[in-house]
Each structure stands twice: as structure tokens, then as C-alpha cells.
């Protein structure tokens, strides 16, 4: 369990001044100054207070899958502009800008790989791509990953991170909720496990579809999870929201989650659950994920 209790190497106040900004990061929760390299080794979880900072989508592939086992699906799928939509800017321009910044071209990466040798299909949403909003490509890639899971009879995992609908795709954005849920209905009937992993933030149409339909719903600590956004609710009820409203902990308390899982334990915990659902024997020991992939 070395990774769990690492010796403290606190920086002295005098050292901090001289550190270049790209080498360290400050924890937004406890204020601790952490070496970037060390933070990366710890999957962007603050070693001091356990605060979960955002992990890029590719990070989850390394976190969850066995090293080198990932094979990406539908990498070349890109959004069309089905409505010819223009608000203050044409949707095409917004897409082009987002695509330039992203190696994966859309707000979800899908593929297959193994987890401790168990074949799985995986989708990981990318919040940095237009707020992880769900348009046609997000729905299509996830639905295809689900159908491959059905064909291979392999468990499906989706790591959710989304601000909600891709408004620029209008009704097609809404229809992705129906599309993904229809695929999950088929997985459910075939008895193929589906694990939903909710990260910060998971809201709107994603919450009202695949994020809440897991055979197991897991969430990272402290994530914002809800159907309506907090500001919309505040404007509607004209009251302040209670402390901790719409956090992972709030959802667990209200019965919407099975567990809150520390990112650093996520792989062994999911493997344990999968082995139960797949009728496999208990693992002798939990293999630890290695970030050096």
C-alpha cells in the first residue's frame, strides 16, 4: 500500500518563492503546494487532503485499464452541424476550435481493453471539449461502445463528466439520451454489467440518462452531480441552496449512488465488483494501477 501512505515531503515556505509555476500546483482545497510530477503520480488527487482535481479523459484510461491494452473505437467520428446553428458564433467555428485543442476530436473517448485481465468496453467523457456537452457524436460513440459490449458480452464502463446538452445540436442532443438509454436497456436484458462512474461535474442530460443507469453507480468524492444546475434551481425557488447540495456525498445520502470511490482505489474496487457480477472468483490481491503507462 505504498502509494496510499507516501512519506510527506512538505515544501518549506522559503522554497516556494523560487519554484516556477509549471513545476508545482496549489491544491484548491487545502492550499498545499504540490509538485506537478507528484500530483500526476497520484492521479491528480491531493496527497495532503485527498481533494480530487480534474483528471483528463486519457488519465482515466491509464487509471482503469491494464497497461497497453487500450484499443480506441471510432476515433475519426466528428460532429456535423445538423441544424446549421449560429448563435453569437457559428457552431462550426466552435467545433473547429475545440477540435484543434483536442487529440480525440469530441467530448468522449471510447474503446476496449482489459482490467486485471477482464475484457471491458469503456467510454470516458472529456469535460475540456465544449464542457463535455452531449451531441450526436457523444451519443453515437457511446451507443456503439454499448453495442460492442453487447456483441462481446463484455462489461461496459462510462466515466461521466458533462455540463449537459450540446444546445447547438438542439433536439439531436436530447435524442442522444434516448439512444444511449435504449442501448443500456439491451445490455440490461442480456445481463451484461454496466458501471457508471460519475466525476465532477455530471449534470443535465447525462445525469438524466446513462450516468444514473449503472448496475453500480459510483462517484468520485466531492463531485457536483445533479439534473438541474444549481443556478437554475436557485433562480426557480428563489432561495439559497443548502450546504453540500448536489455533491457526491449528498447523492449517496439520498440513495442515488452505490458508493463514493477514491480515484486511487477505483480500479481494484471496480474489478472486485465486476468479478462479483461476472461470477468470477475473488481476486487474490488488488493489482494497483501504475501511472507510468
Amino acid at each position: 500500500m505504498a502509494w496510499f501512505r507516501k512519506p510527506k515531503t512538505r515544501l518549506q515556505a522559503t522554497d516556494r518563492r523560487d519554484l516556477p509555476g509549471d513545476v508545482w500546483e496549489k491544491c484548491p482545497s487545502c492550499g498545499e503546494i504540490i509538485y506537478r510530477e507528484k500530483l500526476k503520480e497520484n492521479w491528480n488527487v491531493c496527497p495532503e487532503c485527498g481533494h480530487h482535481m480534474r483528471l483528463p479523459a486519457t488519465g482515466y484510461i491509464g487509471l482503469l485499464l491494464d497497461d497497453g491494452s487500450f484499443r480506441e473505437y471510432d476515433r475519426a467520428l466528428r460532429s456535423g452541424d445538423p441544424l446549421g446553428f449560429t448563435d453569437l458564433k457559428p457552431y462550426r467555428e466552435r467545433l473547429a476550435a475545440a477540435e484543434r485543442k483536442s487529440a480525440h476530436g469530441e467530448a468522449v473517448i471510447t474503446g476496449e481493453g482489459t482490467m486485471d485481465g477482464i475484457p471491458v468496453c469503456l467510454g470516458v467523457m472529456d469535460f475540456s471539449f465544449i464542457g463535455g456537452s452531449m451531441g450526436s457524436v457523444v451519443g453515437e460513440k457511446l451507443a456503439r461502445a454499448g453495442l460492442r459490449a453487447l456483441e462481446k458480452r463484455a462489461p461496459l464502463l462510462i466515466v461521466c463528466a458533462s455540463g449537459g446538452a450540446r444546445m447547438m445540436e438542439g433536439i439531436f442532443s436530447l435524442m442522444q439520451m434516448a439512444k444511449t438509454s435504449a442501448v443500456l436497456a439491451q445490455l440490461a436484458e442480456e445481463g451484461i454489467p454496466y458501471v457508471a462512474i460519475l466525476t465532477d461535474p455530471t449534470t443535465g442530460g447525462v445525469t438524466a440518462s446513462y450516468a444514473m443507469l449503472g448496475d453500480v453507480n459510483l462517484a468520485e468524492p466531492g463531485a457536483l452531480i445533479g439534473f438541474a444546475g444549481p443556478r437554475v434551481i436557485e433562480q426557480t425557488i428563489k432561495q439559497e441552496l443548502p450546504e453540500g447540495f448536489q455533491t457526491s456525498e449528498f447523492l449517496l445520502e439520498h440513495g442515488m449512488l452505490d458508493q463514493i470511490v477514491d480515484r486511487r482505489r477505483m480500479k481494484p474496487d471496480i474489478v472486485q465488483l465486476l468479478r462479483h457480477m461476472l461470477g468470477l472468483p475473488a481476486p487474490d490481491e488488488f493489482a494497483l494501477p501504475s501511472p507510468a503507462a
Partner: protein
Amino acid sequence: MATVAHLDFERAIAEVEEQIGNLRDMARERGLDVSSELRSLERKLHGLKQDTFRNLSPIERVQVARHPRRPYTLDYLQLAFTDFVELHGDRQFRDDASIVGGWARLEGESVMVIGQQKGRDMKENLNRNFGMPHPEGYRKALRLMKLAEKFKRPLVTLIDTPGAYPGIGAEERGQGEAIARNLREMAALTIPSVAVIIGEGGSGGALALGVADRVLMLENGIYSVISPEGCAAILWKSGNEREKAATAMKITAEDLKGLGVIDDIVPEPTGGAHSDWEETAGALRDALVRHLGELTPLPVEELRRRRWAKYMAMGEWRTAR
């Protein structure tokens, strides 16, 4: 009937309607023959309605879809169906009056009908929460869908909601989970289903009753991922641009039929559904009978295969390079 509310662009229509009313009253009081004047006014009224309603802009359709005199679910249950028995409650928390449902007959055949229900006045709207369901409303709907499935009767849903309610209790009780579950369960139902957007189809709160073998819209209904006001506030950063948002999002029945998202449009009378409830209900009944007539002979597996294929095809994407 209470005083007839009218929309801004209906003012000219309302004025002629008032003239006709006054003329009739006067003729009755004084025993005069005004039939030729009446005929001419009625011709004028019909022409006005045609001109006004033939080319409604998207934002005008939003207003018609939200018209306070538009027929609601319970009105259609009286006019298009017979033998309605309302069933209440989700068996878990409470009865949500913003969704109504129960057994009814469509030309003699038992079907399950479920729909959102708005109120006609402030008191009823407080009870029905302006047609914005809480999770328990969606859970009641699911219970009734499962009941229909158990007894192998078709499902009809009537959709009319600004959206699922955004509130503290709704979040505490799992609004997202309730909607998500309905989407999955509706996709898997072993009975034929027809969903009709009768007024406002507001986002996930509408879709939670809207995954069906056939999706129809009344001619002046709207269906969108977010309200034009919400879209304008977020993308245009100004609530004043709702007209642009309504147009850009393609929310009318005609647009959505063109995009392949809905299967059929139910025609409304010239002055909109609110101008003639009976005629609208008749058109709805005819459409339901026709679509259910096509669906009920299909074997269950074929029905579900087609339903899944329909939703798999939704969206637009391309392959890079």
C-alpha cells in the same frame, strides 16, 4: 367558459369574434335578422385566422403551444377517449398531480394514457406545478406503463411540460434517475407505444414520456432540448434573443418532421387547437387509431427492433479525413 385569453397576434381575430358576439346579442334582443352581416363577419374571421395561423413564426408557435386556452391532457381524455379511469400515485412517495394517467378507451379498445397536466388557474397550477413533474410523477408514469405492459395494452403518452421541475426536493429524490429509468424502460417495453407532443415538449422532462414507437406532434406544438428563453440566456447571453433561439433550435413540428425526429404531424384547426377543442381531439383520435393500427399487428421483437433502430439513427456525424 371563462374570458378567452388571446395572444398579441390574435388581437384582430379577437376583435372580430367580439363583433360577431355583439351582433348576435343585439339580434336576439331586438329580434333582427342579421344573417347576411354575420356571414360576412364570419368570412372575415376565417380569412384572418388563415392569414394569421398559416405562417406562424417559431416564437409565435411557442406562444400558441403555451396558450392558456389550449386543451390539456385531461381535456383530450374527455374528448378523444371514453371510459377514462384515473390511477394515482407512485406507491413510494406521493401522487404528483402534474402527471395524470389511467385506463381509457380509444374507439372501444383499452389503452393506457399518461400525460403531463397543466392547471387552468393559479390554484390548479399550484397543485399541478404548472405541468412540471417531480421524480414521483415520472415514477407514477413508469408504474402505469408497466401496468399496461402486464396486461398487453398499448401505451399513449401526451406530452405538455415546460420541463422537469428544478427544485431541492426533485434533486433529493433523484430527478435524473427517474427520467433516465423511464428512457430505458420505455425503450424496452413489449407493447406498442405512441407519444404525442400536444403543447410544450420541454427537454428531458418531456422525453421521459417520449421514447415511443411513434412520436407525433400537434401542428403548433414545440419540442426542444431547452426553452428558447434558456437557450438565449446561455448562448446569446441575453433573454431578449429568444426569437433567434426559437428559430435556430428548430423546434416546430414541421422542422422536426423534416429532421426525422418525429413521425407525423396532427393537424390543428385554422385558429389553433384552442379555437376548436372538439376538432383537435378528433384529429388526435384519428392519428392515434391509425398509428396504433399499424403497430399492434407487429410481433414484439419486430416492434422493439424497429424502435431501437429508430433511436440508433438519431443524430448527425461525419468521419474525419
